[in-house]
């Protein structure tokens, strides 16, 4: 079975240099002659070298799954299997990591062992959607690998037109900016809708992402259909002694140019005595001043989340970011989490029923208009959803007065601190 090692002239050039080399890693696997994956990795290197020579890819898709699930595997069959037969099947298992990507060495070693037995020995920590990607299994071994991973508490992630693997930032675990329990939120939603992940039946993919604050360390607004961003409603906390300490350190001019003048809404003013005025009602929670002065400034106490819907990348209509749909909801008590999950379900159902084939929810909103979307998911309108009201007069307004009545109702709820998710909502059939 031990065929000759392929030449890898071009790839070899990627062994040099200070950054860790994936080619070295691939070769280590190829050279582990006692391991079942060595021949596969030899041909894999061969095919890859061939790609480098011809500037073309040679994989095609297909259908592979594990028993009981429809998704979670990215099947790859080689188009040049004739020349590289051992890697003719090189499928990936997308496996969901613990929320926040925490590991101990024990579990990492177990993952390696399993993949050494059934796979190529090549693992990516992590894919752009957050999966651990166990790359390079034969069709037969996909099931074996999965079974063992599943036994130690891991499950497949998403692929195809399905709920996808989610990510949350480190947040609560190690970050003072965090405004909600990101890991709990992620697990509440994803573990509730595993069926949508494992048995792809949505119009297209659907992604959740969770960032503890508007720094958005998991890129949720751009890269999630449903982005959850931590924020707070009350005043930020200011420690004036630390403010002064900061000014002492950096100087007044630096403070003015880098903090005061950089606030996007002119919510900050430096007093002549080096204390800081914060106009909290103008502050948009951009995080900048808190980021700069980590000791002096911190989020308030009335924490919660904003939900933005509709982010995706370029395909078809061009890039979309999420739009604010829920400006604020609390996410602390069990009831909050229940409501949150119920709302997520509402959105997924709306998506399942109203999106066209291969249409992301952001594209649906773009097609049907925000108003119809809000009606379809039982969300009350809020000015935070928009940068500004319409600038053109092209709208039929003869029902303006009725709509104004609804706003009055909404305002009453808001005055009581309620969010804009209608509780009594029943989706239209």
């Amino acid at each position, binding site marked *: 079975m031990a065929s000759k090692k392929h030449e890898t002239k071009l790839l070899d050039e990627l062994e040099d240099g200070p950054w860790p080399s994936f080619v070295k890693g691939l070769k280590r696997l190829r050279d582990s002659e006692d391991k079942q994956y060595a021949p596969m990795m030899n041909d894999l290197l061969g095919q890859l070298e061939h790609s480098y020579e011809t500037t073309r890819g040679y994989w095609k898709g297909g259908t592979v799954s594990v028993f009981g699930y429809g998704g979670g595997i990215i099947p790859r069959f080689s188009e040049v299997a004739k020349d590289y037969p051992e890697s003719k099947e090189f499928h990936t298992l997308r496996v969901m990591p613990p929320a926040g990507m925490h590991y101990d060495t024990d579990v990492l070693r177990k993952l390696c062992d399993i993949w050494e037995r059934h796979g190529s020995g090549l693992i990516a920590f992590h894919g752009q959607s957050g999966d651990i990607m166990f790359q390079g299994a034969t069709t037969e071994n996909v099931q074996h690998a999965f079974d063992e991973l599943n036994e130690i508490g891991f499950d497949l992630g998403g692929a195809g037109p399905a709920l996808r693997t989610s990510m949350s930032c480190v947040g609560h675990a190690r970050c003072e900016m965090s405004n909600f329990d990101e890991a709990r939120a992620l697990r509440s939603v994803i573990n509730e809708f595993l069926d949508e992940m494992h048995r792809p039946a949505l119009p297209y993919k659907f992604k959740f992402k969770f960032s503890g604050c*508007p720094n958005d360390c998991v890129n949720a607004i751009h890269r999630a259909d449903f982005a959850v961003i931590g924020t707070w409603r009350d005043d930020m906390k200011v420690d004036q002694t630390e403010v002064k300490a900061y000014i002492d350190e950096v100087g007044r001019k630096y403070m003015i140019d880098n903090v005061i003048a950089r606030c996007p809404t002119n919510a900050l003013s430096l007093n002549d005595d080096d204390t800081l005025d914060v106009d*909290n009602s103008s502050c948009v929670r951009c995080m900048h001043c808190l980021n700069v002065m980590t000791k002096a400034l911190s989020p308030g106490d009335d924490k919660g989340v904003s939900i933005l819907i509709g982010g995706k990348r370029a395909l078809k209509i061009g890039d979309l970011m999420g739009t604010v749909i829920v400006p604020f909801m609390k996410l602390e008590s069990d009831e909050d989490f229940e409501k949150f999950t119920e709302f997520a379900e509402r959105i997924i159902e709306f998506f399942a029923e109203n999106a066209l084939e291969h249409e992301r929810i952001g594209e649906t909103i773009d097609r049907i208009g925000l108003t119809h979307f809000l009606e379809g998911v039982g969300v009350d309108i809020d000015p935070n959803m*928009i940068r*500004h*009201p*319409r600038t053109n007069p092209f709208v039929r307004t003869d029902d303006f007065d009725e709509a104004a009545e609804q*706003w009055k109702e909404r305002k009453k709820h808001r005055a009581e601190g309620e969010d804009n998710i209608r509780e009594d909502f029943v989706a239209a059939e």
Partner: protein
Amino acid sequence: MSEEKQQPRRPIECGVPDPMQYMHPVLKANYGNWAWHDRMRPGVLHHVSKTGDEVWTVRAGTQRQMDVYTIRKLCDIADTFAEGHVRFTTRSNIEFMVSSQDKVEPLIGKLTEEGFPVGGTGNSVSMISHTQGWLHCDIPGTDASGVVKSLMDMMHQEFIKEEMPNRVRITTSCCQINCGGQGDIAINVQYTKPPVINHDLVANVCERPAVVARCPVAAIRPAMVNGKATLEVDEKKCICCGACYPPCPPMQINSRESTKIAIWVGGKHSNARSKPTFHKLVMANLPNNPPRWPEVEEVVKKILYAYKENARDWERVGEWIERIGWPKFFDLVDMPFTHHHLDDYRGARTSLNASAHIHF
């Protein structure tokens, strides 16, 4: 007068007159050579040239639509209390230039006495951009002169004082075409329903393909009614823009029931600080209620004083709202936020809040 018919006079195509012949001598002498200015009091500008020459300008409001008596009265004042030279501003205010400061107070006195409010400078509410309306236009939904008069009466004190955070430039438009342009506050006719077609007239009056082409959302199609070639409107598509009405008056877009007034805020032409902006919808469906449009007055007043009380120095209306956020703005003025405020026209996507920048 009959010889004209025999021998029509050929026009002299003289074009735009040279302003130098009419210009105040100090302005002429310092043309392109001014150094700085300040304002000693509302309604008065004081400009100093690089050679040290000085000129004082006194600005006063007019009704724009002036009878010759009013104009002659202004000329009398200019001759007696100023130096015989005036100019009009982009907002139909009249300006009297004088070369010595001691002429300023008497001039102000006389103007005030004659009912011409002195002001409109600096951080005041200047005269409203004025359009034609029922007085002259062929497609108006309301009367501009009446609306402007009513509102300027209400805001008179804000014209003669400079107590606003920054200048306030208000516009009116008596149909959706918007000849009055964009404004810090804009008071515009808003059609609230699709046009109602007088089928009997369409055939005679309108060039049908041209009308069909005019509709921005392709809501008009040719139709036959009672055997006559006419047009029909798909009411689901129609965005009530009124573009079909000027080329085809039988497509009646105006009616007592459907012609309403909408109020807009945050238009800005200057490039100061923020880039120029368009105004944004605040309030729709206000009654078109002559002779004094009290409901409109009420709304404008609320916005104006919310701005006056809450904005910071130099903030224009739109900039103020940007800072405090639309939620707070709608609360402060106590007006409803409805689905009509959500843009759904082309490019609407860019008006969505695609960020976690949220105002609480």
